[in-house]
């Protein structure tokens, strides 16, 4: 397997004009809070977005050499049914969502189960920038500069046993804080899963930010998965539980429509959704006159992850 370590300059290194224009305000705010220099990244008020730029980051591997989708679009066009099924619902309904304090339960086939605070989880990891394409099953895509760390690095800390064949992730269930959960469009809480080798793959990322800043609530704050070679819904948001299991997890969309959404859900232009083609994708932010983009096998990461599925019938294991 070839690990690409292209070190292109991610767009995320360029200061967002919004923050640039607010630079004086940011400095004022930081000094007022006595926070300058010791940035606490997990504040949830809207204005705090500007003050929570992750400082110590390095350019991670695997980034694609493309201009990221505008911050405005990345944060206003979301599928996050916990905050409503419309594309703008998450941005509108998640503004008061509190992500502090936050903890993650680690269960199942591991030597070190337990409930960890988010600070515990993050402490030993150095954050990195990774520009990935996100391909939604609805045939659109955007390019997002994530801030995060490899999921595999975290998993190793819990010391999974030999029986840990799968990793199951669960989103927070709290209809008071997540109003979308009051309607029964999906069987809450949202559950996703990966095979252990998929989870350990260096492409699999746990993201805590985008565009150099703390993750906006509508993008899955405070911590979410990013599996770039799979359809977007595999990249579960606002994770509260990681469970190591011997059997394949029952994932939310697969449960909701097993004929349409498989466990693997790898991006594949040769396997169509039963109701629409997956050959091409609409690029978010593009003009109405620009044609759709051809979808790449495994969303462009075929060289990296193809070997995980050697000998598997991808039409059967969609």
């Amino acid at each position, binding site marked *: 397997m070839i690990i690409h370590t292209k070190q292109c300059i991610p767009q995320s290194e360029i200061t967002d004009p919004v923050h640039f224009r607010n630079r004086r305000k940011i400095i004022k705010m930081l000094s007022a809070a006595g926070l300058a220099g010791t940035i606490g990244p997990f504040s949830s008020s809207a204005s705090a977005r500007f003050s929570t730029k992750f400082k110590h980051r390095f350019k991670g591997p695997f980034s694609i050499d493309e201009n990221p*989708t505008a911050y*405005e*679009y990345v944060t*206003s*066009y979301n599928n996050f*049914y916990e905050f409503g*099924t419309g*594309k*703008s619902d998450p941005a509108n309904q998640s503004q008061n969502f509190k992500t502090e304090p936050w903890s993650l339960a680690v269960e199942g086939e591991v030597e070190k189960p337990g409930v960890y605070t988010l600070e515990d989880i993050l402490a030993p990891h150095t954050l990195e920038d990774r520009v990935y394409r996100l391909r939604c099953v*609805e045939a*659109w895509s*955007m390019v997002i500069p994530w801030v995060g760390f490899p999921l595999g690095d975290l998993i190793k800390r819990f010391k999974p046993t030999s029986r840990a064949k799968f990793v199951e992730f669960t989103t927070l269930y709290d209809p008071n804080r997540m109003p979308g959960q009051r*309607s029964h*469009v*999906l069987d809450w809480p949202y559950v996703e899963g990966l095979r252990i080798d998929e989870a350990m793959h260096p492409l699999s990322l746990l993201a805590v930010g985008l565009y150099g800043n703390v993750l906006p609530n509508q993008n899955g704050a405070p911590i979410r998965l990013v599996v770039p070679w799979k359809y977007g819904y595999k990249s579960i948001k606002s994770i509260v539980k990681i469970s190591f299991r011997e059997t394949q997890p029952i994932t939310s969309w697969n449960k*909701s*429509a097993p004929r349409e959404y498989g466990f693997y859900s790898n991006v594949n232009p040769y396997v*169509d959704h039963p*109701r*629409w*083609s997956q*050959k*091409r994708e*609409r690029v*978010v*932010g593009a*003009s*109405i*006159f620009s*044609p*759709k983009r051809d979808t790449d096998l495994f969303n462009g990461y075929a060289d990296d992850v193809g070997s995980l599925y050697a000998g598997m019938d991808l039409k059967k294991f969609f």
Partner: protein
Amino acid sequence: MIRSKQIWQALKGIVFLLSTTPFVFLAVDTIQNNLGANPLETLHFRTGDWALRFLLITLALSPIKIIFGYTHQLRFRRMMGLFAFFYASLHFFIYVVLEQSMSWRLIVAEVPKSPYIIVGLLTYLLLVPLAVTSTSAMMQRLGNKWKKLHRSIYGIGILAVIHFFWLVKADITEPLLYALVLAVLLAVRIFRKHLQRAGTKGWKRAWSTRIFWEKLTTHR
């Protein structure tokens, strides 16, 4: 003295202008680049929504007559139907010209794999003959056949709602709402006779409070 014909013409003008407002808003938003992250999807959804809404408005005019006995709204049936066709045409051309970049190869590759698009295209194709034969001259020429032809609008309404249902991922609230409205409008036609008996005469009588009161008291 203003004659009633002039009043009707003015009223038709107002309804016409009102019906074009969704198009005007859409055009302004397009020019101002105000259609959001996925502008093509926005154009698609908004034209589709309005096509369906005008279709339902068209289908609602007769039930008003059946239930309440009023007939004035029937004068707007053609205009409403043509507006449904207008928004459906925009919806169709956005698909062919923008979504598929007018490429026959792409359309042929994608359409057979997308049942909701097949249903959508069929719905539109069925609307075309109705629009073409909507003139008074055509009405006269076709005579009895015209009525038969235009009954296909009921089927078109059902297809349009199926088209909507089929493209939704999980939240069927919106298509369900349209389906319910359509179901009511079709049900009124099925139970036309019952409703007319209880309706036209009954409603008019019911409005007269004296009789209404008498009815109430005698039932006691």
